[in-house]
């Protein structure tokens, strides 16, 4: 089990030796070599260390024959990567010429692809606990309730950077406790409560100025908070907005800020904070001024029905002459606003619950109503309701046992509060059931250990929907599966197409792409205020960068373009704020929209702020981290962590006392021979991006060293590059290397198990097959779905049952 093969520790400086950007493909397309010459190369150059006596790294190639490859595929897959990356033979040792290495790689790959290896059809654990995001999406699709998984459930462990790996999704008592609590909460939200007691919700604004329009709030407003809330009953609700008259000494009161409260985009309350009268209050009355101004922000009442509502507390945008702009800047990145922020507000209610209007969730649940439908007893109705919901929740046809369980909950609930309570308890029980929380695959009877079989159509339906939607299957998928029609190749292709076209597939961008590129790292990069006053604090661009990356990747996948376009596409999605970060001045307003990029440095993933920032430090760029990023996630050559005892660069040297450029610092670092052999390969990749500063903005000069940026470097194959365009073009010369990395990652995400050496023949096959289709995204997904890894399972060898918990 590889629970601990977590992604390489991100803060350490990786060491990687010579890496070729000359990929696999050139060699792979030539006719397969015979073997003798290639094995001779191996003996000549590798056995100095990898012989039977020294066995360095546990490997010997002394008596290597064609048969050894089939005997030790794991070792030879490793050798392929080392050779592809030109990590071996190490710097300083005698080197074969490039063509000989390409030919050896092609030979080894060809041999490995022919090994009749079956381990890729897993007999390992496949029972998946729903992770936070899957739970969130499942609850939304099942009951039309929006919940925040991060608030409801404990964080999930990851393996190889993915949060959907079955073996890492362990369970502990606190998980059980929180899943049961979550079930109560979700059911309470979905049902509402006709006689609800007053409750309270608090909403806080994120950081940043509130000078621009918040998407979802009425046009003509600026800033504020948009809260999506699911109210428990019809009735009167109150809003209390946080004090605004709280500036020291009461200054900043002289400008009028017209405030509005909206419920579903209708104004329910208006007032003005600041202006002449309030200033006079402060100056002349003083006593009570604060309290009387802030009183206008309290006890704002409105009537609302049960169910989902959008509540907005925002300001009317003023005309240009009145100006909502910042008044003056007295500190970098800051300033005295004449425009207030809504920092937070509290919603309370219902104060006089008047029953329940119909809500989308209730309509979804109550498909049968015994008071309206006189032909049906409450019990019949309950069974009907449970059958419909449990089919989706458990993702299979419902059994008598299922209904019997749910009817027990129903009976408990009826005693407490009649039909409604009965159904609610049943739904709570359903959400806490292992049939909902776990997706498993049944072991068919009558097969021998080691035998392989295809998963059932029902299991296939779940696999597809969790892969492509990160959620439960819909009725169409389930119905096809029940009729055993889903596995029919034409039907399967059609369903994959349909699912990719569905809006729910945006999780491939927001979840898969983010995990593949380790965008979690972005959360930890809080830009340093002293170094980046223009992109920190309330000007922190990270949230906009995330939105851009999601929209950009989604556009490539959704338009079914070649995945290579991820590296090369000339468009992106920007709003005014982000456009200004990119030096583009003709994008206006807060909404993200598609923009064709004139500046080629910004094309593709490597020009995107999210990536440039995630592979940097909070206070400076890091050519090493960016080089490592490209190797790991673009080229698929895993970086190795540095040997113990290697000191990190002292950040204190940066731009402060000694005012060295990052390049000069790195040069100091490379003076050590231990470091130089590897960094010589990695650093040029990162240096090519040096014109992008630590927060992803373009620069021509190092401000602290007062020196121009030097982005020149040389790749291992001797190619001289200078700047992002050269780097991108060098990578694009071997697009198959990038596609191989993409396929490897997509396959891992689709299987929900860790990536292993025996998956490589499949990965290479998919790359070869989809080359003819221009590496179109849908072609790659179809190939993954058809792969044995995705479709097949093997009967495990019997083992004594023991606890998996360490």
């Amino acid at each position, binding site marked *: 089990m590889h629970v601990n093969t977590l992604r390489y520790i991100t803060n350490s400086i990786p060491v990687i030796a010579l890496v070729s950007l000359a990929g696999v493909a050139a060699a792979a397309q030539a006719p397969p070599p015979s073997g003798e010459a290639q094995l001779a190369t191996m003996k000549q150059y590798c056995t100095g260390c990898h012989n039977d006596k020294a066995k360095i790294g546990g490997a010997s190639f002394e008596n290597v024959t064609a048969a050894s490859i089939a005997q030790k595929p794991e070792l030879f897959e490793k050798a392929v990567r080392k050779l592809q990356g030109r990590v071996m033979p190490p710097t300083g040792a005698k080197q074969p010429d490039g063509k000989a290495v390409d030919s050896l790689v092609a030979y080894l790959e060809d041999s490995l692809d022919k090994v009749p290896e079956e381990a890729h059809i897993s*007999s*390992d*654990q496949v*029972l998946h606990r729903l992770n936070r995001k899957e739970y969130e999406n499942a609850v939304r699709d099942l009951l039309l309730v929006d919940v925040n998984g991060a608030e409801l459930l404990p964080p999930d462990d990851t393996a190889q950077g993915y949060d959907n790996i079955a073996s890492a999704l362990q*369970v502990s*008592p606190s998980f*059980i*406790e929180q899943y*049961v*609590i979550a*079930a*109560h*909460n979700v059911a309470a939200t979905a049902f509402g409560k006709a006689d609800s*007691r007053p*409750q*309270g919700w*608090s909403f806080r604004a994120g950081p940043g100025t509130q000078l621009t329009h918040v998407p979802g709030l009425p046009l003509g407003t600026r800033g504020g908070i948009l809260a999506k809330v699911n109210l428990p009953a019809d009735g009167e609700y*109150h809003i*209390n907005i946080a*004090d605004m*008259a*709280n*500036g*020291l000494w*009461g200054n900043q009161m002289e400008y009028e800020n017209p405030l509005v409260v909206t419920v579903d985009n209708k104004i329910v309350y208006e007032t003005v904070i600041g202006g002449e009268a309030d200033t006079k209050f402060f100056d002349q009355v003083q*006593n*009570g*001024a*604060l*309290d*009387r101004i802030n*009183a206008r922000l*309290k*006890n704002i*009442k409105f009537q609302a029905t049960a169910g989902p509502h959008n509540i907005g507390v925002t300001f009317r945008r003023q005309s240009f002459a009145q100006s909502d702009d910042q008044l003056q800047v007295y500190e970098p990145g800051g300033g005295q606003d004449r425009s207030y922020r809504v920092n*937070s507000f*509290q919603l*309370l209610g219902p*104060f006089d619950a008047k029953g329940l209007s119909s809500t989308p969730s209730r309509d979804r649940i109550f498909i049968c109503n015994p008071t309206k439908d006189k032909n049906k007893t409450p019990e019949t109705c309950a069974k009907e309701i449970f059958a419909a919901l449990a089919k989706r929740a458990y993702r299979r046809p419902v059994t008598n046992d299922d209904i019997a*369980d749910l009817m*027990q*909950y129903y009976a*408990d609930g009826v005693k*407490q509060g009649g039909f409604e309570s009965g159904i609610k308890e049943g739904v*709570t*029980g359903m959400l806490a*059931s*292992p*049939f909902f929380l*776990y997706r*498993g695959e049944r*072991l068919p009877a009558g097969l021998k250990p080691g035998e392989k079989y295809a998963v059932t159509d029902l299991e296939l339906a779940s696999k597809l929907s969790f892969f492509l939607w990160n959620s439960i299957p819909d009725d169409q998928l389930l119905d096809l599966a029940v009729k055993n029609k889903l596995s029919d190749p034409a039907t399967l292709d059609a369903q994959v197409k349909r699912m990719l076209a569905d809006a729910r597939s945006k999780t491939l961008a927001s979840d898969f792409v983010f995990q593949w590129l380790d965008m979690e790292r972005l959360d930890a990069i809080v830009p340093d205020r002293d170094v980046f006053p223009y992109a920190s604090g309330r000007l922190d661009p990270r949230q906009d960068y995330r939105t851009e990356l999601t929209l950009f990747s989604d556009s490539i996948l959704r338009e079914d373009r070649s995945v290579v376009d991820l590296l090369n596409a000339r468009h992106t999605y920007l709003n005014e704020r982000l456009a200004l970060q990119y030096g583009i001045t003709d994008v206006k307003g807060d909404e993200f929209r598609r923009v064709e990029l004139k500046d080629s440095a910004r094309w593709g993933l490597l020009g995107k702020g999210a990536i440039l920032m995630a592979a940097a430090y909070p206070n400076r760029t890091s050519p090493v981290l960016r080089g490592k990023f490209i190797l790991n996630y673009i080229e698929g050559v895993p970086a190795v962590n540095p040997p113990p005892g290697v000191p990190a660069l002292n950040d204190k040297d940066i731009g402060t006392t000694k005012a060295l450029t990052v390049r000069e610092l790195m040069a100091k670092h490379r003076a050590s021979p231990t470091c130089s052999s590897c960094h010589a390969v990695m650093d040029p990749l990162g240096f090519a991006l040096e014109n992008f500063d630590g927060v992803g903005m373009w620069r021509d000069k190092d401000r602290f060293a007062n020196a121009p940026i030097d982005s020149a470097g040389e790749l291992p194959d001797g190619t001289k590059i200078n700047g992002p365009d050269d780097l991108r073009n060098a990578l694009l010369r071997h697009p198959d290397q990038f596609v191989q990395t993409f396929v490897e990652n997509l396959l891992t995400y689709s299987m929900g198990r860790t990536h292993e050496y025996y998956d490589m023949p499949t990965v290479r096959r998919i790359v070869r097959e989809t080359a003819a289709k221009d590496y179109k995204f849908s072609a790659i997904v179809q190939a993954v779905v058809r792969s044995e890894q995705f479709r097949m399972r093997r*009967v*495990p060898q*019997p*083992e004594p*049952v*023991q*606890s*998996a918990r360490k």
Partner: protein
Amino acid sequence: MFISKKHIARRRVLQGIGATIGLPLLESMIPAATAWADTPAGKTPKRFAFIGFPHGAIMDRWSPKETGTDFTISPILQPLEPFRKHLTIVSGLRNKPAETPEPHAYIEQGWLTAVKPAEFGKAGPDSGVSADQIAVRYVGQDTRLPSLELSVGQGSARLAWRTPTQSLPQESNPRAVFQKLFGQGDTDQERAQILAETGSILDRVQGQAQRLQASLGVKDRVVVGDYLDSVREIERRVQMAEKAHNSELVIPDAPVGTPNEITDYFKLMFDLMALAFQADITRVITLSMDHEASMRTYTNLSIAEGFHPLSHHGNNPEKMDKLVKIQNYHAQVFAGFIKKIEATKEANGTVLDHSTILFGSDMSNSDRHNNDPLPSAILGHANGKIKGGQHLKYPQDSRHGELLLTLLQRNEIPVKSIGDGVDGLSEV
């Protein structure tokens, strides 16, 4: 005119809200109940509360004139007179290592660390860790919540530092605090119902898990085995909770949110703190009564100026009187908390006997933003290790860090220093 109209409306509504938010907790609070602490025989629980207020105190009306046991209570601390045998007033201390030219921003961060924020972590891994969080390491593992960090009012305060770089967020919404303490359900009846429902869920999911297990491969069955183990553990906890539910401690209904009236708000927070001690949900609580440079108005005391501008009193007697009024009011709401935990009996005494409570500020004279001498008062006896009933006056430049160290050491916490505190105060 608009404003006054609004004002009337607001007052009327407040009465309505008062009935739903304030009263259940405030008035029907726990009589002399028994606390739930479940500690091994012969061992009494050790509890800590650190309660800070901003803007210091008018020192000559904070410190009593006389020292020793026979002192006349000072005007600000008057509300604590009924508890004088539990009260130790410590005068004359200075928090020199935490002094910074930044008047408000950093002052609260130095109160429990005795280090200035810019130097957190420099003198060692624990430099900049606050006294409450050091206590948590020794007394936090026995309760469901290792510690509870709270604040009254909007704006953020940063008293509690778990590490030199991580401050703990202080919750200001009483509803959120309540749910942290008691979980779901707004009323006693709802909580009982949810507990029962949870019991039957846990019962039934075991049957379902066994059905699921039957159809799975070996390794998957192990996973379900782990799941079942976890379910049984939670079942055990639920049974414990049900038992506790039947104890005589009355848990009030959940508050709706943050009350608009400051007295309701204070009482609610202090009541929740008392409940957390009584129900033994946590043994370490840190509370900021307001944040530095706050603009709160105390209209309940007929003081309509913002707290911060008022604190720059410029030796204006009228303003100083108003400040004393506010400071006395803080002592008064705090005394309500002391009254409750004094009334709660447990093995070998009361909750107050077993508590160590620091009530003070990291500022002295707010007009000049100085930190010398600090207002500090200890309530409680640390299981008999703190005498109580005296006013101690230390010479100029005595160290505030010694006080923090003393509070921990008297509770047998083996810490050698906090900030500049290395010796402790033997007289306490």
